[in-house]
């Protein structure tokens, strides 16, 4: 869940991103002051095939790599196509664009302002996750997931 008072932005690229590009971008983004939360969105890349005739067979995929952002290592579970950001203020957007400019040199991208994260839990959220679910991540990620959010040390 996010607080409605914080502005949000998203970075949409012309192509789905390789893990190396995501790593470069995030390492640029974390140097920008005033970003509260980042969600990496895109189609999921499961480690085993979830259904079909080859169910449970391992699914090696070059887009599901380990990336290192700042000091933190994390495994990508999606083929990143959209990056949602919760900002402290709208003033951050120009520096966000500057960070993107250094990374996206071979294809285009857009930084859009809008509301992309949930601000209120829905009835389905209540039914799915129960009354004691971690409200801070409802609407961003699955609160039942064993892997929690990655905390990046900012520059504050």
């Amino acid at each position: 869940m996010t607080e409605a008072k914080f502005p949000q932005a998203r970075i949409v690229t012309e192509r789905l991103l390789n893990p190396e590009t995501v790593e470069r971008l995030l390492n640029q983004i974390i140097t920008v002051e005033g970003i509260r939360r980042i969600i990496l969105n895109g189609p999921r890349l499961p480690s085993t095939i979830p259904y079909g005739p080859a169910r449970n067979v391992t699914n090696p995929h070059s887009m599901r790599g380990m990336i290192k952002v700042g000091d933190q290592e994390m495994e990508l579970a999606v083929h990143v196509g959209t990056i949602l950001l919760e900002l402290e203020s709208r003033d951050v957007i120009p520096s966000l664009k500057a960070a993107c400019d250094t990374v996206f040199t071979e294809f285009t991208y857009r930084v859009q302002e809008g509301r992309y994260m949930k601000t209120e839990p829905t009835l389905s959220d209540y039914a799915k996750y129960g009354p004691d679910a971690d409200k801070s991540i409802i609407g961003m990620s699955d609160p039942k997931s064993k892997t929690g959010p990655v905390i990046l040390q900012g520059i504050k």
Partner: protein
Amino acid sequence: MAYKPQYGPGSSTIAANRRKYMDPASKLEKVRDVTDEDLVLILGHRAPGSAYKTAHPPLAEQQEPACPIRKLVTPTDGAKAGDRIRYIQFADSMYNAPCQPYLRSYLEAYKYRGIDPGTLSGRQILECRERDLEKYSKDLVNTVLFDPALTAVRGCTVHGHSLRLAEDGMMFDMLQRCVLDKKSGIVKYVKDQVGVPLDREVKVGKPMDEKWLKAHSGIFHSLVGVAFRDDAEYVEYVQRVHSLRTKYGFMPKE
């Protein structure tokens, strides 16, 4: 005057391509050579070289009932031998892939016999007797209807048609059945169509360049190709069909 089928309306290159692909009289240009064995590996229905499994005895060995239709229709090779029904399924990217699901079903219905095409928004499945399937699949993979990057053989987990392409130009595939070799620039299948890893890689050639794709595209796309609205004849035709369908219950008179 004898009726001459037109196959489709439109004055754009897309419309011309669609007509060309659908017309059974026009021979599709062959652009790659995937061997029979390679294709059998990608399909994953039988081991290369093994016998075809059968669903019933060959027609010559079984008593056929006296039926005028059976006398009229010559069975295909697969039906004659009593092969099982197997399938091939394609996912086509909307970023100028040469063929598209609806178009596939149309052209297959015009060109091939004994088939059951199934059309969905982003994928198209072709079911027929195994022997016939291999013959038809070879046609579909080796000719202009296929592009290694934007068309993929996917038995399941087909999502990719409407997604943005990856940085290397490949259509998204959750199972990454085919990969682009950066050194040689050739696309290789490393899994069969349902995602089971292959014993050896199957090369399907280099992805076609942008110019070729634009010239052979089977889909309108306002950003990367020809916009649908630019083809006035096509728009007029589609609007006419839409209008007549809507008025159908009221006995339309033109």
